[in-house]
């Protein structure tokens, strides 16, 4: 038997993976425990990371440069984000929660302003430009361009609700539905592919941690879980009776 921090880490990893996978059998205490641990650890990890990697060096590093030593010079303008950040925390005090709206208004306004230009440029203008048929290309590419144009046009007609979908408009919108269905089908196919990839990753870890080197972590935990789940399942059905 080998015991070190790496082995402990591996055992925790295997236990958490199998706990999550146990949901495939049904909702059970193993799944619940791992779910709660995951949420807690994630929140704590992100909080610590944001504090030490962002707020401490980028905000306090500019307000107290010599004390923090993050390489920034003193910049008094950073008092404004500090105040806005404190305002956000006032949401916890009902009588002062209105102050948080100032910070939220700033964030929403700034994000909308930033997104406005880039979205119009990259997702509307450039996409419209590339939906046009380029007659200088080869036959196959021209056909693809026509198909894209037809897809864009018919899908837009489907979302045009100011006119009843009858006659020509109805026929075009129906073509739009088929294009949308193909898109959803492709998205679903890719989603399935992604999930299978993740399963492969988990299985690879479980296989590699089944060896003597890791004190047979996977088989020992798997068998223990099956036995405990079996007992739990039996006891639950007895209680229900």
């Amino acid at each position: 038997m080998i015991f070190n921090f790496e082995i402990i880490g591996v055992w925790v990893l295997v236990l958490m993976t199998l706990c999550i996978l146990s949901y495939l059998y049904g909702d059970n205490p193993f799944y619940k425990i791992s779910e709660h641990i995951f949420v807690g650890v994630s929140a704590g990890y992100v909080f610590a990371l944001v504090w030490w990697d962002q707020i401490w060096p980028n905000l306090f590093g500019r307000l107290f440069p010599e004390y923090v030593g993050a390489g920034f010079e003193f910049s008094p303008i950073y008092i404004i984000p500090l105040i806005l950040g404190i305002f956000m925390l006032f949401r916890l005090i009902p009588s002062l929660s209105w102050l948080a709206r100032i910070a939220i208004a700033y964030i929403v306004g700034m994000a909308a302003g930033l997104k406005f230009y880039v979205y119009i440029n990259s997702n509307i203008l450039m996409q419209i430009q590339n939906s046009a048929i380029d007659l200088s290309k080869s036959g196959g590419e021209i056909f693809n361009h026509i198909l894209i144009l037809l897809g864009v046009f018919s899908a837009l007609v489907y979302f045009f609700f100011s006119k009843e979908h009858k006659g020509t408009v109805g026929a075009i919108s129906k073509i739009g539905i088929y294009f949308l269905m193909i898109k959803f089908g492709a998205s679903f196919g890719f989603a399935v592919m992604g999930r299978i990839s993740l399963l492969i990753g988990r299985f690879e870890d479980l296989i590699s941690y089944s060896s003597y080197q890791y004190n047979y972590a996977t088989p020992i935990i798997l068998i223990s879980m099956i036995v405990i789940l079996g007992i739990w399942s039996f006891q639950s059905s007895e209680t229900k009776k």
Partner: protein
Amino acid sequence: MERFFTIFGSIDRRVIFLLIGLSVLIPLIKPDWVELPIKIDNNTQIVYDSIADLNEGDRVLLSFEYGASTKPEVHPMAVAVLKHLFSKGIKVYIVSLWPEGPIMAKLAMDEIIASNLFNIEDGKDYVMFDYKVGGSIVIKNIADDFRGIYKQDYNKIPIETLPIMQGIYNVQDFDFVFDFSAGVPGNAEWVQYACDPKEVPLSSGCTSIMVTDAIPYVESGQLRGILAGMPGAAEYEKMVYEYLSNELVNNNKYINQNANIDKGKAFARMSAQSVAHLLMVIFIILGNLSYYYERRKKG
């Protein structure tokens, strides 16, 4: 036949989970049992050609936007792209916009260093930066004023002292940007906030689920090809493996002659992926037939 499909329709979902699990597990344990050929997709070829066209000494910015949950899909492409870049003597700059990004980047770099394929030095041939929160805001800052947000590298060394950082002030100082993404911020934000406005070539490797959203950018040329999920990673690994094997024979000065070149992890995983897909297609067909017979029975 009708009875078979009716029984099939009422099968316990856990049996299907078990069969899918076995279809993944068996090819992983016994990879020799299922060996399927890998065909190179046009989008992967475009990515490969874009990087192959870069010259010695060019500067490439890599952005790591994935974590442990999407590592199986995206990590193999990160390792393959890094191998391709270092084999050409290209300078690599790594930023992370996801909390787990620096860990993934460190793992990828550790794998490259452990392979002993290249004589690379931190701060001279590559540089890593820590995670920055803010997503698209960070991308916008990288586009306009890189040094405004990054003062130190991952090892807390001031960037002014790093030789690799000479002449780097904004995204236009890079010859190429490559984004490994699994969500938001990801390739869409790089297109919108940095590479479209500043006209810097961008390519991306992403999870399968993101592909349909990214394809319009590829079709319009806003993204130079795309590595689509695990198949994209496997295809790229195959191309890089063949390239490195040839370069080793041709005495490429950036590749250590006594090093071993491995095929990569995604390559080995594709058999499991394909078998699972085949099984799912069979289930979809059988499920639909079962539904059809059930409806016919009800009249």
